[in-house]
């Protein structure tokens, strides 16, 4: 008799699970947007005879029910938890590393030497024409190697940078790799985001000053100011793990003088930091208002010299540190610029005494660096 009862019990439990989620899903409200995934979820597709017959309705509808399934975020957490339990170290293209670090995985085969040579040749033209300095920042996987899982694969950026020095000449290159490697025990990269921290940028700044034979400004590392204690970056979103919140810190010295920042030739601001981003998921946008095609900064320092930066988002937290050295800083994101670069730069160089700096992390450089002369 107990056997029969047990049998019924099992069948009822299974049926109940299916029924419960079916009914719950039926009453589940449709979400337009998933904050955890940071994307618009598929919404109910329009039915038409044609989309039904060619099968596209079926496909869209399946995406729709999966995207809108009840408690979607919780299911995803269960799955990630199971993966971690199975000792998986690479989740969503991100390594789960020791000390709660999340470090992005870059497949070396995606950055073949042909690609490296092509990008370096393009950069060489720019360096030769403008006598530019080049700062290619290594990504966390190359510097925090002791935190990576055993035998983890990463692109050898040391080798790439050595090659860059051969192509561009040692004078053009700023050795930020060596500087960061020396400080690899400090918080120079965020735990949950792919960027370097303000402290990491500070060491980049020291390397920059050294390469330019300049006396660095006296920023006090022990007086850094914390502006956020709950930053969860892109890597946390990619893995769907809980993650340990990062702090965002800045050097208070960068707030000393009033600055004038002009975004995209139109919007004027009086600060280089944008508080409003600290209430969003994209807290790194705090630095220089996230991404802009072109920014002009009047630093408030009396200085005849100007600096023209071609950059990725790694530069955003380093640029504030450069203020004392220049009267004007021009910041350009080449991803948004389709015109001829050199004539455009010329119009700023004419105003006299302009330095040029190329600042990318190695990966962004290989993926995104391009321009038309």
């Amino acid at each position, binding site marked *: 008799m*107990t056997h*029969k009862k*047990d*049998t019924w*019990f*099992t*069948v009822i*439990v*299974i*049926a109940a*699970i*299916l*029924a419960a*989620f*079916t009914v719950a*899903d039926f009453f589940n409200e449709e979400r337009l947007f998933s904050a*955890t*995934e*940071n*994307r*618009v979820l598929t919404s109910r597709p329009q039915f038409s005879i044609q989309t*039904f017959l060619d*099968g596209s309705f*079926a496909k869209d*509808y*399946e*995406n729709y*029910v*999966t995207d809108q*399934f009840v408690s*979607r975020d919780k*299911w*995803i957490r*269960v*799955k*990630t938890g*199971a993966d971690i339990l*199975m*000792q*998986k*170290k*690479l989740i*969503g293209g991100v390594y789960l590393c020791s000390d709660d670090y999340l470090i992005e995985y870059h497949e070396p*085969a995606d950055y073949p030497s042909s690609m490296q040579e092509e990008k370096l040749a393009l950069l060489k033209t720019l360096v030769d024409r403008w006598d530019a300095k080049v700062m290619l920042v290594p990504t966390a996987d190359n510097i925090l190697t002791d935190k990576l*899982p*055993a*035998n*983890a*694969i990463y692109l050898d950026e040391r080798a790439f940078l050595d090659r860059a020095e051969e192509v561009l000449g040692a004078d053009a290159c700023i050795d930020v790799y060596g500087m960061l490697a020396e400080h690899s025990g400090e918080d120079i990269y965020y735990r949950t985001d792919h960027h370097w921290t303000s402290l990491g940028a500070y060491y980049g700044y020291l390397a920059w000053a050294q390469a330019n034979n300049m006396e660095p400004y006296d920023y006090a590392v022990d007086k850094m100011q914390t502006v956020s204690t709950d930053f969860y970056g*892109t890597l946390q*979103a*990619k893995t*769907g793990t809980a993650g340990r919140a990062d702090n965002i810190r800045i050097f208070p010295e960068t707030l000393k003088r009033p600055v004038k920042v002009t975004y995209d030739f139109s919007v004027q601001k009086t600060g280089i930091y944008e508080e409003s981003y600290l209430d969003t*998921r*994209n807290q790194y946008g705090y630095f220089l208002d*996230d991404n802009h095609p072109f920014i002009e900064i009047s630093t408030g320092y009396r200085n005849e010299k100007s600096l023209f930066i071609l950059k*990725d*988002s790694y530069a955003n937290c380093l640029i504030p540190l450069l203020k004392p050295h220049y009267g004007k800083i021009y910041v350009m994101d080449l*991803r948004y610029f389709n015109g001829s670069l050199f004539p455009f730069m010329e119009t700023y160089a004419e105003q006299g005494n302009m330095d040029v700096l190329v600042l990318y992390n190695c990966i*962004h450089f290989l993926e995104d660096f391009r321009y038309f002369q």
Partner: protein
Amino acid sequence: MIFSSVLFLFRFLPIFLLCYYLVPGRAKNIVLLAGSLIFYAWGEPVYILLMLFSILSDYIHGILIGRFRGRKAAKRLLVSSIVINLLLLGFFKYADFLIGLINTASGASIPLLKLPLPIGISFYTFQTMSYTIDVYRGEAKVQRNFLDFAVFVTMFPQLIAGPIVKYRQVEEDLHLRKPDIEQIRRGAMRFIVGLAKKVLLANNLGQLWNMIAAMDYSEISGLTAWLGILAFAFQIYFDFSGYSDMAIGLGDCMGFHFPENFKYPYISASVTEFWRRWHITLSSWFKEYVYIPLGGNRKGLARQIFNILVVWMLTGIWHGAGINFLLWGLWFALFLILEKLFLGKILRAVPPMLGRIYTWLVVIVGWVLFELPSFDAILGYLRAMFGQNGVLFIDRRGMYLNAEYSILFALAVIGSTPLVSRLSAGLAQAKSGGAIALRRVLEKVLPAALLLLSIAYIVEASYNPFLYFRF
């Protein structure tokens, strides 16, 4: 629609089962037919006409063959039924393959048809052929009830990936079936186990294989290559046998008794044994309807070898229209013939472990032929596997992947042996109070846990964080 989807588990299945259990006796077949047609039409709205044509054709052929049984006309009708089925299959599955062959051989450039393959056509044409052949042979009664016959062909559990059910195996079930609660429980469990095999093991190992298959074979280490093809070997086994489990389980829930399709093939100690354990319903179909009619082993050794070659070429291209599938079939034919000639005797004399290693090697190399589409890829991959591509056999990537997937592989190895089912059988027989208590808890907890975990993996499959703040 596939079983391992939110749509099937939380839309189709609950609604279908509710209707199915609510309607009385004979009406159940109407619900089953309607459900199956909706299931098929969901992905293939146009090709449903093809399936209906196939049903009608063999329904009529069956009746006519029955009427003329014993006369010459019956034979002609049988030939007509088989030709129609093979033409359907040939046209939709092999036309482009043949056109391609003709083009390469003659230098012509006949345009390809590029028709999408109707889902399940390889399965349902074989099922309907088994019906007309059995009726002709007098091994099955003529089915005059169109509904029952249509249910036999369209039944959604095994419609798209088998097992290939012979008509006489379900003849009685089609008419009358009364599942008791024990069969329903068994079916539900079987379905969940199949779902977990597919979602937890096959899909995840498939990711590893996809990653390695996309690499440059002249640069991968032996270790990586072996991990890749082992991942594929387990992927295809758990995918296919998981699907069969789900089909058999769903059948049980409705009172059907579908034939087994897999019996732990990876523990086989010879290739002959492997094919008695792998995709059993296909091998037995070919054996019954091709190999034995050709004379089997009754007409001398030379004829037997010829018969084996024919059957295995057919088995090969049944799996897909491509030279590599043909090669794959012939590869197995070679070892089956060797085992018939002398190898079998040797294998019976040596410890079974040696036989297993030999079988694994044959099967693994077979999967390389099966899965890689070009000769270059096949040779390149084999070179990597056997350390002939000039790369260190054990490298950093291989060691990393080995660690990353070691638990999954361990679960896959355990899952492809009868270990778990033996343990549970042992537990079921145990008489001690502790064992009984343990069994009762496990029986209640495990299916629910496996089901929930599988759902999590299914929902996560569309997890796709969009990082607009990429920079």
